[in-house]
């Protein structure tokens, strides 16, 4: 393959089709290098560059679309060639040599991997050349009779049970925070100082109450508190008629 590819590189346009058989520029370079039939360590980089450039030039002549990496490699090789032939100075000559060595070693690397692939490919392969037992026997038995028991899972069960129980218990009606007799006593005590004369009991109710039931409860508590305070002589109460409004004032004896 390699010899023919190179032989045709100069003249016939048929070689260009062969470019497609190569896996990128490095692959072609390796093929060209191998065709020099010397140790890869001693290939002529210049000759290699010329061959590569000739092939790329040929491909361009027949207007074959070339992928960018082929052209990048061509440009780099052209640069390398110019530096190898006419270096501008000692440093440049060294750079070119290092670059050439780098290319040679990359080619050697690829060559080694290609050899490795060849070696692998030549090995008898399981499933292709040799076969293992087609119907292996499963000599394992699964015993699922045992129980996995540990305290954490028992605790999770315990908490689960508690939660379930508490979750149902919450249906007991919750205590509504009614206005209590104690609340009313405290409020009456505070407000009486500010009320000079008879004041209706309703004025002593808290300002905001959620609903009618709460209002009735507060009224009852306030009445009870006023009765209590009246009994101890702190206040006087009066009511003009049955079911009429009740008024209170601070007792004069105090």
């Amino acid at each position, binding site marked *: 393959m390699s010899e023919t590819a190179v032989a045709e590189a100069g003249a016939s346009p048929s070689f260009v089709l062969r470019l497609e058989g190569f896996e990128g520029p490095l692959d072609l370079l390796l093929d060209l290098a191998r065709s020099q039939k010397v140790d890869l360590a001693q290939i002529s980089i210049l000759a290699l560059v010329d061959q590569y450039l000739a092939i790329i030039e040929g491909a361009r002549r027949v207007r074959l679309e070339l992928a960018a990496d082929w052209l990048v490699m061509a440009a780099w090789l052209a640069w390398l060639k110019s530096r190898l032939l006419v270096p501008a100075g000692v440093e440049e000559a060294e750079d070119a040599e290092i670059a050439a060595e780098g290319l040679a070693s990359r080619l050697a690397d690829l060559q080694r991997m290609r050899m490795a692939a060849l070696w692998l490919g030549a090995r008898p392969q399981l499933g292709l050349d040799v*076969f*293992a*037992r*087609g*119907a292996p*026997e499963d*000599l*394992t*038995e*699964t*015993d*699922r009779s*045992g*129980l*996995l*028991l*540990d*305290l954490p*899972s*028992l*605790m*999770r*069960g*315990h*908490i*689960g*049970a*508690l*939660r*379930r*129980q*508490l*979750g*149902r218990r*919450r*249906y007991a009606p919750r205590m509504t925070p009614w206005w209590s007799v104690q609340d009313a006593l405290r409020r009456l005590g505070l407000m009486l100082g500010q009320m000079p004369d008879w004041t209706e009991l309703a004025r002593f109710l808290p300002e905001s109450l959620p609903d009618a039931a709460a209002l009735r409860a507060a009224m009852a508590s306030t009445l009870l508190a006023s009765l209590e305070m009246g009994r101890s002589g702190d206040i006087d109460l009066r009511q003009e008629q049955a079911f009429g409004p009740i008024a209170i004032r601070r007792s004069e004896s105090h």
Partner: protein
Amino acid sequence: MEPSDDSLRLAEALVFAAAAPVPLRTLATMLPEGEEPEAVVAALQARYAGRGVELVEVAGGLQFRTALDLAPRLTRVIEIPRRLPRVAMETLAIIAYRQPVTRGEIEEVRGTALAQTTLETLLEAELIAPAGRRDSPGRPTLWVTTTTFLSRFGLKALGDLPRRDDLVNEAQLLQSADLNEQAAAETVVSHD
């Protein structure tokens, strides 16, 4: 005619590598002209007689099989313990913490009927045992945990079980119960 060694090797490899039993007629197509498949099989069977594997005729053809007497020695038993279902674990926890306890009381706590299989699972595992009957209508059986229960959970005594307070505080439980309340409400209603 004695079958050739080549035929024996081929038959051996074929039966070995095939994924399914090899029919005699498949073997026949592989063998050289004039070679009797039956004779090849017989010779191969003789060669393997008394060995670790044997050539047997099964439904559909020939197959190598581990010698019967060796199978038990080669079989590895892999133990994969099961977990108790959640219901069983909860029931076990209720019994552990409230023993002795009747089935009705367990159902009371869980707020739902207890499947017979749940108690049976626990009984079978020897984690619980009956301990007399309660003197109440119907004389229901009382359940307690066993010494197997203690040893399986690595407890010296029932007193080693974490106390309720150690575990969680009730407010937290209530809170999480509240979170579930919408979902729970339906269940509770239907239970009522």
